[in-house]
C-alpha cells in the first residue's frame, strides 16, 4: 500500500493536517493510541486519587467517550474505534451500578 508523501501536508491548516497525515500513514493507530492513552491515564489518575477501581472505569469510559465523539466528528477516529469507546462507557457504568459492596 502506497502512502501519501509528507510533502502533501497542507501546512496552512495547522497541526490538524499533520495529525491527520500521521494518523493516515499509521493506519489509524495514532488516534487509537490517543484514546487508549486517555483511558489509561484517567483510570490510573482516578484510582490513585480515589482508590476506587470501579468508579475509575466509569469515569475513564465516559471521558474517553466524550473525546472519541469529538475525534469521530472531526474524522480523526474510525467508527469502529468510537464504538469501542461507547462499549467501554456502557460496560464501565454497568460495573459501577451493579456494585453492591
Amino acid at each position, binding site marked *: 500500500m502506497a502512502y501519501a508523501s509528507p510533502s502533501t501536508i497542507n501546512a496552512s491548516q495547522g497541526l490538524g493536517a499533520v495529525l491527520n497525515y500521521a494518523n493516515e500513514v499509521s493506519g489509524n493507530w495514532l488516534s487509537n493510541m490517543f484514546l487508549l492513552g486517555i483511558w489509561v491515564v484517567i483510570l490510573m489518575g482516578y484510582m490513585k486519587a480515589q482508590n476506587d477501581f470501579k468508579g475509575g472505569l466509569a469515569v475513564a469510559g465516559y471521558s474517553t467517550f466524550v473525546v472519541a465523539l469529538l475525534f469521530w466528528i472531526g474524522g480523526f477516529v474510525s*467508527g469502529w474505534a468510537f*464504538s469501542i469507546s461507547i462499549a467501554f462507557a*456502557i*460496560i464501565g457504568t454497568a460495573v459501577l451500578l451493579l456494585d453492591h459492596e
Partner: protein
Amino acid sequence: MEGAFRNSLIGFLLVALFGMMLLTGVSTVSDTYSKDTSEIVGGSMSLDKFNQSISSVENRAETLSDTFREGSIWSTIAGVVVEGIFGLTKDMFDMVILSLGVLLGIAEDTLKIPAYVTSVIMGIVIFTLIFGIWRLLKIGD
C-alpha cells in the same frame, strides 16, 4: 444481601437507560454533522435492543398501577398475590436478562470477548437470579 436482587434489578435498568441516553446522543450528533452511524449503533449496540429491555418495565408498572387503582383493597391484594406475583417476577427476570443480553452482546461483538466467557457469565447470572427471586418471594423483601 437481602437488597442485592433489588439493587441488581435497578442497576440493570439504569444501565439500559444510560446506554439509550448515550446512543441517542450519538445519533443526534451524527445527524447534525452528517456522519454515518451504521457502523456504531447497529448490531448489538442498537437503540431497539435497549428500548426493548426498558419498555417491558413501563408496561408492567402501568398494569400494576391500574390494578391498584381500580380494585378494592382485598381483590387488589389477592390479585397481586395470586395472579400478579408470578408475572411480576417473570418480568423482573426478563428485565435483567434483556439488559444483560445487550451488555454481553456488546462485550462479544464490539469488545471481542469470546462467546464461552459471556455464556458462563450469563449462566452465573441466571442461577443468581433464580435464587434471588426465590428468596424475594420467600421473605417478601
